[in-house]
């Protein structure tokens, strides 16, 4: 336990930042990449989680619990958002029988 808890001192903060940035970028790329709304939602989760990781890393580095509390709240919000988002997807599926994000494009210009 002691070893684990001191991991932050062994692993440079840059690594976590880098990892987080990578995850965030991958998530973002996924949002751009996919057409399946559910997949996009998953990519969004990925992005949220990269933020979580970053916050936790910083929190650990600063020895400040508020960062981790923030992560807790982000989880709450993410859960709520997923609930709403999936409800919207369900509604959409019901209306247009598809989960293609580009299918809904009546509102334009």
């Amino acid at each position, binding site marked *: 336990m002691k070893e684990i808890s001191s991991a932050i001192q062994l692993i440079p*903060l840059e690594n976590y*930042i880098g990892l*987080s940035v990578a995850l*965030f970028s991958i*998530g*973002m790329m996924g*949002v751009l990449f996919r057409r399946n*709304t559910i997949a*996009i939602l998953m990519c*969004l989760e990925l*992005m*949220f989680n*990269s*933020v979580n990781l*970053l*916050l936790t*890393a*910083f*929190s650990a*580095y*600063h020895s*400040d619990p*508020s*960062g981790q*509390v*923030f992560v807790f*709240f*982000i989880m709450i*919000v993410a859960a*709520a*958002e997923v609930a*709403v*988002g999936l*409800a*919207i*997807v369900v*509604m*959409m599926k019901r*209306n*247009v029988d598809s989960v293609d*994000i580009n299918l*809904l*494009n*009546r*509102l*334009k*210009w």
Partner: protein
Amino acid sequence: MSALILLTVFGIIILYLGFVNNKTILAPVAITGLVATLILSVKDWNLGSKYFHDMMIIDNFSISFNVSMLIITILIFLFGINYYDRMEHHVAEQYALMIFALTGAFLMTSFSNLIMLFLGIEILSIPLYILAGGKKSSFRSNEASFKYFLLGSFATTFFLFGIALVYGASATFYLPEIKNYIAQFHGHLPPMLMVGLLFILIGVAFKVAVAPFHFWSPDVYEGAPTLVTAFMATVVKTAGFAAFYRLLGMGLLPLPGPLEKTLWVMTGLSLLVGNLAALRQTNFKRLLAYSAIVHTGFMMLAMLSQHDSSAAVLLYYTFVYSLATVPLFIIFIHMKRASLGLEELSIFRGLYRQKPWMAVFMTILLMSLAGLPPTAGFLAKYRVFILSISQGYLAISIFAVIMAVIGIYYYFYVLREAFSESNSPTPLVINKLNAALIIVCGTAVLLLGIFVWSVPI
């Protein structure tokens, strides 16, 4: 604080009233709740209280913005009485969600910790994602909600990433502490911090639909039910700017150079893009959406001018803007009904012939939006220009002046329709309450223009 609690309580009460299945009592109760909240809010005037480890600061700034939003919400609810008349399901939920969204807006006006800002934005947004999709069978409503949600979440991730970066550097979420932390760099911020701040600003900018993060707003405005559009165009914008101002005023001002330049670019872009896109717009709701982007630009101008009175001007501008926008939506919904669901500008034709007084009030409202004297809209723009010019931002002010001209063009284009003859006049029936609302707002817009109202903040 008590106002906030009362508001949430009323939200829940409304939810429960949904079980009673009596639509007629919903709006009155909701409005009672809003009025009570209003009274409680005003009672806190000049107290300047801080709550929960400075998580929230209820000062005059937040109270005035809260009151402004409450008044607009009351207007919208009054509008809702007639609007929701035909709707069978989920009326209570709609009211409750709006009240919850208002709660989020309250948090946004009074936060001093980024977590409260984050929560506020989310509490405001999530109900709106739902409300935008309020007409479940309508594809357009569905699409609006879908787009709003996806883009909103996407923006939120950036916002959060920004917070994380700022936290990483400063180890705090408290705005004053962040401010202190930033101050030690004397304007030369390390890139990480800069990017973090940029992401936070972008997150908020997205919510108020600043170009180039405005893409959601025309689609969502158009697709969402009109009442919700009115709510989004007014309350959400007000809340967004309150948050924006608080963020800048309490934490970030004076902004480091590159960030400030970025915001100026956004301001200019908003003015330009909104105006240009609105120029040939034929859908009224979309037109108002684009024009809202322009107004955002003006509000940004006021905010970025960094003067003691910026807050007052911002408040005045948002309130006057909201006051003119809501009744326009009311007029619009009547015309839409008369024309059997069309949303084109041409539905306004023949308005002057059928209901001259309504055309007159529409003139006043559009004039206010266009910024012509003697309406309050003019005064609002005037004050914005005073701010920006006195702070020496001459170039952008001139640019804004030119943009104001374009704005006048499309508002008067609408007006011209209203004063043209209609080919097929359909009978126009106006609900008395809505008529009263239009008249009250129109008169208020005039009076606010003539007898200037200013809040010492």
